[in-house]
């Protein structure tokens, strides 16, 4: 079910401002790809173009080709809603729906798309997704309590459960651990390792140790100067990236000698 993503010559704009330019890469299926780079270099922006969430912002647009199993995501005939069903996303801050219980939050993707589910099917999806997100044992006795009552780390895992409940092919994670403590972060990193078997995962992180721990491939984004568009500096297997990078600025950034 996991799919690889081919990106060629992608430029991303906010109105007239070019935020990211000339990105080429191939994101492998059933692997974890991490994006690192300084703030404002466009890694989150690029991540959001992979499921057409970028265009939710007024004036935002994308040039170039992003293909998943031979289909260009930005073809005029492609429905962004279908793209987002195939490419799920977890956000920086946990954002469970405040009006819904834990149970309903997990089913939100199915229910909101008005899929009719039998009670047994719904229960099965909830249990499978919560187990997949390593949250089942913690919440199985209080599925009907509000999702907002969980701790931050639990809320984030609830959001991951919600994202995998619709069985996407690709899972995008935009700094999923930046609002969490080290223990919750470890729980989510373990989860990423497990999810890798069935999903293509792309993760943006500010934490280079995290990128080194969880990812198979890493992309380094950087800015030429303030006000200039961000661009992809280097894209290599994580091991090579952290031991023997091709590019000098990558080495400087990773080793902390940046600027």
């Amino acid at each position, binding site marked *: 079910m996991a799919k690889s993503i081919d990106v060629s010559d992608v430029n991303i704009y906010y109105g007239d401002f070019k935020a990211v330019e000339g990105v080429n890469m191939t994101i492998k299926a059933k692997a974890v790809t991490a994006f690192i780079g300084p703030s404002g270099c466009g890694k989150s922006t690029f991540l959001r173009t992979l*499921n057409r*969430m970028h265009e*939710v912002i*007024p004036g935002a647009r994308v040039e170039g080709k992003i293909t998943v199993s031979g289909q260009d995501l930005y073809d005029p005939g492609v429905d962004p*809603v*279908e*793209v*987002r*069903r*195939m490419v*799920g*996303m977890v*956000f920086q*801050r946990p*954002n*469970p*729906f*405040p*009006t819904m219980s834990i149970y309903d939050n997990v089913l*939100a*993707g199915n*229910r*909101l*798309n*008005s899929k009719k589910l039998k009670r047994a099917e719904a229960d099965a999806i909830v249990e499978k997704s919560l187990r997949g997100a390593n949250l089942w044992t913690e919440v199985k006795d*209080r599925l009907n*309590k*509000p999702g*907002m*009552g969980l701790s931050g780390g639990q809320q984030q895992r609830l*959001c991951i459960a*919600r*994202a995998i409940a*619709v069985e996407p092919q690709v899972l995008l994670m935009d700094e999923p651990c930046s609002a969490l403590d080290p223990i919750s972060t470890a729980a989510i990193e373990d989860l990423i390792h497990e999810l890798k078997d069935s999903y293509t995962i792309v993760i943006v992180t500010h934490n280079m140790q995290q990128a080194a721990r969880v990812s198979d491939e890493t992309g380094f984004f950087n800015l030429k100067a303030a006000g200039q568009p961000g661009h992809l500096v280097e894209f290599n297997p994580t091991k090579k990236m952290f031991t023997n990078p091709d590019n000098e600025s990558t080495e400087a950034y990773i080793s902390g000698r940046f600027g």
Partner: protein
Amino acid sequence: MSAVDISRSERLYSGRLPAYAPYLVLLTAFAASGLLALLLGWGLVAFAIVGGLIAVVALPAWSAVVENRRAATDRLVTSVIWAAFAVTLVPLVWLVWVVISKGIPAITAAFLTHDMVQRLDPVTGKLEAGGGLEHALIGTLLVTLGAIVISVPIGLFTAIYLVEYGKNNRVGRIITFLVDVMTGIPSIVAGLFALALFTLIFGVGTRMGLMGSIALSLLMIPTVVRSAEEMMRLVPNDLREASYALGVPKWRTIVKVVIPTALGGIITGVVLAISRVIGETAPLLVAVGAAEAVNTNLVNGRMMTLPVFIMTQYLTATPEGFARAWGGALILIAIVMVLNLVARVISMIFAPKTGR
């Protein structure tokens, strides 16, 4: 106090007034004012004003002597705020008290179940008015219901457009401006508009309850739009993005995520709008007129409404008329009160839950 001599700027200790100080001051102030009132023969108003003034001045003064300057300022501002609160409460309590005390005697079973049509009394053999407000109660409920049915969908859809689609475009700005202008329409103009509209369509002399509903909805729509817009803007964008990222179309996101999250506030806004229009007299008098009998048909003939009933009863200038006017006023306030309570309950049920 301390053995070591420390300079004033380094001292951490200062005197403290006891916790009961404000109550003591209040008691003393009103006792003093009461004494003065007895001696000089003042009325209740002068007694209350002087008592309040003494308290507001005395507490900060005492604090300035015992405590420090910052504490005295704090006490002064606190006293002024409490005084302002009390002053605001006076007209409200007064109004409710007067309406209840004058309205209760008028409210009987017959008052609620009769209209004002004159009928031949079988016992006395004389023509007597019904002496009730059933027709006005039914009329007000129907006309207001009509106004809700018209204005809530329009107002809600306008707010959805403004928040979700027309955020920065020209149409959105024009609509916002027009809604602001609409807020300022004098209510009688809304009544005249409804009258003119129906006269144009159905001819001169047309009277129906629906005209009142139209007039009231003109007054309700801007309030509904404004409050729904504010509430939907408060829904965090994170939730919309979370929903889009699950592959939910925009319209479903609005219906299933944005509106439920904002529902408590939207309902409160609608109820405030209803409370605002349910007591409108002028537009209803112009558009719907007055009637003596129960009329449950919104699209045919004049209807009585509570505000118009109160006014016509007051204009009779008879003791029975005055009594009925007060009774009608009490019923009107009770309806608004019940609406507010219902809205509270509904918004409590739908409020986002944070419990564990």
